[in-house]
């Protein structure tokens, strides 16, 4: 009897683990937005990884009023952002912009499906990585938010 209970328990556990693993794979299949900030010297550091799928889905929970506000602010640039991200998805890996002086180093690059922004200066280090496709998708959602209040 006990062995049968363990068998059922094992199957449930296996099923749950499989579901979690599958969910994780689906969630991360779209890439992740990661933000790393480190204040120097020996200051606080923050590392935030957010699956891109959650960012996309999360936007649908943002109140329409806030979305419209965001759209009003960056609205004129949305077509340019969409065109740039669509074109960036197509183009090969490259360092797009690099600015360096004796105090600061800024690097914007495309690696695979990810757009990376790295800033290193005397006071802090910032690394931001986001899937290029997410930029297009968010811009698309914001553009769709331009409805009646």
């Amino acid at each position, binding site marked *: 009897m006990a062995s049968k209970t363990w068998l059922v328990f094992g199957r449930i556990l296996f099923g749950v683990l499989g579901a979690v693993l599958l969910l994780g794979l689906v969630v991360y299949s779209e890439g992740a937005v990661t933000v790393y900030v480190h204040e120097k010297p020996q200051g606080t550091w923050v590392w935030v990884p957010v699956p891109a799928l959650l960012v996309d889905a999360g936007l649908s929970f943002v109140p329409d009023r806030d979305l419209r506000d965001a759209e009003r602010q960056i609205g004129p640039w949305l077509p*340019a952002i969409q065109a740039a991200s669509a*074109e960036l998805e197509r183009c090969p890996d*490259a360092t797009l912009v690099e600015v360096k002086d*004796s105090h600061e180093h800024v690097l914007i690059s495309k690696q695979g499906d990810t757009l990376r922004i790295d800033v290193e200066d005397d006071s802090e280090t910032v690394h931001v990585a986001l899937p290029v496709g997410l930029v297009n998708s968010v811009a698309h959602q914001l553009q769709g938010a331009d409805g009646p209040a």
Partner: protein
Amino acid sequence: MTRGLSVLRVRQLTLVVLLLAATAVAASAEDRWLHVKVDDSGGDNEMVRINVPLSLAEKVLPCVHAENFDGGKVKIQGNVNGVDLRQLVEAIRDAGDNEFVTVRDRHDDVRIAKAGGNLLIKVREKDGESKREPTTVDIKVPFTVVQALLSAGKDELDVTAAIRALRTQGNTELVTVNDKTESVRIWVDSRSASE
């Protein structure tokens, strides 16, 4: 009959070669990159590198609507004294290779010429009494690009059309500026990296 077949085969072969050539041209046009490289060894040792696919610029610029830059066209500011730039450029294009403008004064030598389908502008600063190294500026723009740039209208420059025209060119050195501490280079090639 055999001769007819061989003619047909030659035609097919020619068509295949033409298609391959067209594909190669299209592919090369797709992969053009604009590079900007600035090095300043004075002061903070500044360095700037920009590498942009021309296809990206061509798609993005028409979507930008700013004050003097609308839909990929920039309004010419200032007075061009009624000069029709388009007609001027077409007159130069139709003329043979030559030096059209030479200005020499105490400070600079400026030369504007046409050579091999390109508009060339050369500025040579004279060192005079200053101790710094004189600045040299070289600008080379293919005429097709200049024409495309001026294709919009009298008071407008069509930047998108110029980029489209630039994509059909080979590797092109557009701007080189050098002085003792600073160097600027802008060029187009098929590589995604500047170095």
